[in-house]
């Protein structure tokens, strides 16, 4: 049921050229080189250490591996991570 709903949403946003992250409620991940990573529209933090960070989202769990990672900001709509980012993985 949910999948069908998403399909429709996808087609509509494709047809009307609407931003898909808004339509499909997907996270927007912005990386600034390897020193900063912003995740908007997240669903909370699952795990945080200086080496690994897992963030829940509608697209799945975003797993970030790096060194000396710090959470610059946590807000209900955005998380900013700074440090040395080595790997970003999305586990659906």
């Amino acid at each position: 049921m949910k999948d069908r709903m998403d399909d429709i949403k996808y087609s509509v946003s494709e047809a009307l050229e609407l931003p898909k992250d808004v339509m499909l409620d997907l996270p927007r991940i912005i990386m600034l080189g390897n020193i900063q990573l912003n995740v908007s529209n997240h669903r909370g933090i699952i795990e945080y250490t200086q080496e690994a960070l897992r963030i829940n989202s509608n697209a799945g769990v975003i797993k970030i591996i790096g060194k000396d990672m710090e959470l610059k900001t946590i807000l209900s709509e955005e998380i900013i991570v700074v440090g040395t980012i080595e790997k970003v993985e999305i586990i659906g």
Partner: protein
Amino acid sequence: MQVIRLWNYLRGYVIIKVEGLTLERFLNLAATRDIYLWDIRRLDYTLLEMKVGIGGFKGLEEVVERVGCRVEIMNRNGLPFLLQRLKKRKMLGFGFFIFLAIILFLFSLIWDIQVAGNKRIAEEEIFQTLENVGIRRGIIKYRIDREYVEDRLLDEFEDLSFASVEFKGTRLVVEIKEQDLPPESIDMDTPCNIVATKKGVVLKTIAKNGSALVRKGDVVDEGDVLITGLIRDEDPEVEDMLVHAEGEVLARTVYTYALEEPIVKKVEKETGQVYEAHELRFGKRGIIFSKDDIPFEDYIEKTRKVKLFGREIDVPIKILVHEYREVEVVEEKQDIDALKNTIYMKAIEGINEQLAERVEVESKDVNYKVDGNMLSIHIVVEVIEDIGRKQPLT
């Protein structure tokens, strides 16, 4: 980013350490409650360090209760805490206030008065006038009515064409402009004589108006009438006529100038040895810092000011450096011919100062005389010049 940091500083924040097992839950709960957390760092497996605003910290209490962790305040930062600390240290704040007040007070005083543009009027006279209106060093500058002072200056000195009083920081600058005095002229209608300005032998008299009283070869003294404006007719019946005399009287006049110079001269020669002493001066009083007495018998003293901040600033506290240069006094016998030359140059300079601008030098007589240690020079110059000066007839 700097703006946010500044904002946080102004609002005040605390650095806290949170200890617990489900710290991610703690972060998520805080985020959903719109508590702004920043600079979160994992220190240990069960330990997080973060910053939170004052308002946010109060909201965290509930979160802490639900998650079941321990919160420890490490540091309080920001302006509100600073003010709180200041409240406890009232004297510090008071001192700061006094400091500001003193600075403001000192800046509103006049520390120096400067007069610019005066040529004939002595500075002292202007200072005196200023003093009469109550302006001197050390008064508060806001009390000065500049327009009034300017008017007073213009009143006091009649030949001022312009006066302005301006503040340049703590310095009062009085700028004046003196009127150019017109040469004393006698109206063409006023009857006048032409009299001699100095002693001389008349060479030529050209009377354009009036009648000449002197002829070539006459010796005249200062004040003698050369061309008269009073014309008498031979016929006593005819009334005397008064005219505005005009003309030139060229005469030969003499100028002399004498000068003496010692032949054996004491010359101070620097040996290159220098001794320095520093002085700290407050106004007129000073303390000299020096290790011991000046180690030289003969010396010349030079004083220079240490420029603070590389600029000339007028402050009541000065640092002076006294430089004592050792000198040797040597008696030097000068070559007479060379000395004659230099003394001659000096004498010519001296005599040129006496001469008026438009003169014709007729002859020049130079005499040297050696008298013991002294060489003297005597110059006599004969010139031809106009010695006439108008003097109103009464």
